[in-house]
C-alpha cells in the first residue's frame, strides 16, 4: 500500500488508454479527477512536473528540471545515466492556459518528436489527450533513434521486476 495517502481515501485510479494511431503517432488518454487549471498547473510548474513525470517506481531521480513554459521557451530534464547524465530537451510551440500544450523533443538523432496535450474539462474532471508525433516509424517502433531509448530500457527492466512483486496485491 502507498503510505503517503494513509489518511486519505485512495482515489480510484482511472484507466490509461494507449493507442498507436499511425506509424508515427502514439495517443495516450486519461481522465484526471480535477479541474483543468490544476492539471495544467501540474504540467507547467517545474517543481510539480518533476514529481510525476518520472514516477518514483522507476528508480530514477531527476537531477534537474528547468521549464520556461511560453511559446518559444525551452525545457531541459537531466537524469543520471551510467555514471554520467542524460538530457531531454526541447521547445514549447503552443501554450494555451488550461487547455493545450505543444512541445518538441529534440534530443533524438533523427529529428524532433512533437507532443500535443489537450486538457478538456467536463463536470470538474479533465480528459487529458496526449499525442506524440515521432519523426519516423522507426523512432516510434523501437526508440533506437528516438526520444528515450535508455529510459525505456530501464523502464522495461524495472517493470519486469515490479511485475514479479506486485502480482500478489
Amino acid at each position, binding site marked *: 500500500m502507498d503510505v503517503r495517502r494513509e489518511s486519505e481515501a485512495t482515489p480510484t485510479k482511472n484507466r490509461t488508454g494507449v493507442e498507436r494511431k499511425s506509424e508515427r503517432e502514439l495517443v495516450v488518454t486519461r481522465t484526471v479527477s480535477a479541474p483543468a487549471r490544476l492539471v495544467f498547473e*501540474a504540467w507547467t510548474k517545474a517543481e510539480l512536473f518533476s514529481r510525476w513525470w518520472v514516477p518514483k517506481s522507476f528508480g530514477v531521480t531527476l537531477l534537474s528540471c528547468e521549464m520556461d513554459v511560453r511559446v518559444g521557451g525551452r525545457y531541459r530534464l537531466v537524469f543520471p545515466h551510467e555514471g554520467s547524465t542524460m538530457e531531454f530537451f526541447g521547445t514549447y510551440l503552443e501554450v494555451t492556459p488550461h487547455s493545450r500544450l505543444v512541445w518538441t523533443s529534440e534530443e533524438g538523432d533523427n529529428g524532433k518528436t512533437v507532443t500535443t496535450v489537450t486538457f478538456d474539462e467536463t463536470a470538474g474532471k479533465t480528459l487529458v489527450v496526449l499525442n506524440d508525433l515521432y519523426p519516423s516509424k522507426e523512432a516510434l517502433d523501437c526508440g533506437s533513434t528516438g526520444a528515450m531509448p535508455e529510459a525505456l530500457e530501464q523502464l522495461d527492466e524495472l517493470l519486469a521486476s515490479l511485475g514479479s512483486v506486485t502480482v500478489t496485491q
Partner: protein
Amino acid sequence: MVQYGQAHFDTSFGALSDATRRGVLEQLGRADASITALAERFHMTLTGMKKHVGVLEQAGLVNTEKVGRVRTCRLGLRGLEEEAAWIERHRQLWAARFDELDIVVEELKRKEKANGRKKRK
C-alpha cells in the same frame, strides 16, 4: 500499416474462435506446413483450407510464403506478442505517470480548498 486498437484484437480473437483454425495453429506450432498438407491433415478441400489460412493471416497469426508452386504457412505469433508488449510497455509508463500526477493534483485541490476557506474568513 498495423492497427493496434480494439479492431486488431477483435480480428485476432475472431480468428481463434474456430476449432479448425486453432488446430492449424497447433499444427504449425510443431512445424511449418504447406496449404495442401494442412488440407489433407484436416480432411478439407484446398479452397476451404485457403479460407481458414486467409483468416489467420489477416489476424497476423500466420504468415505464408509462396515458393514455386507451394505456399508454406508458419506461425506469425511473434508479431502479435511484440505488438501487445510494445503497447503494454507504453501503457505502463503512462499509467505510472498519471498515478503520480493524480497525487500531485489531489494536493493542489486540497490547497485550493484550504485557501478558499481562509479567504472567506
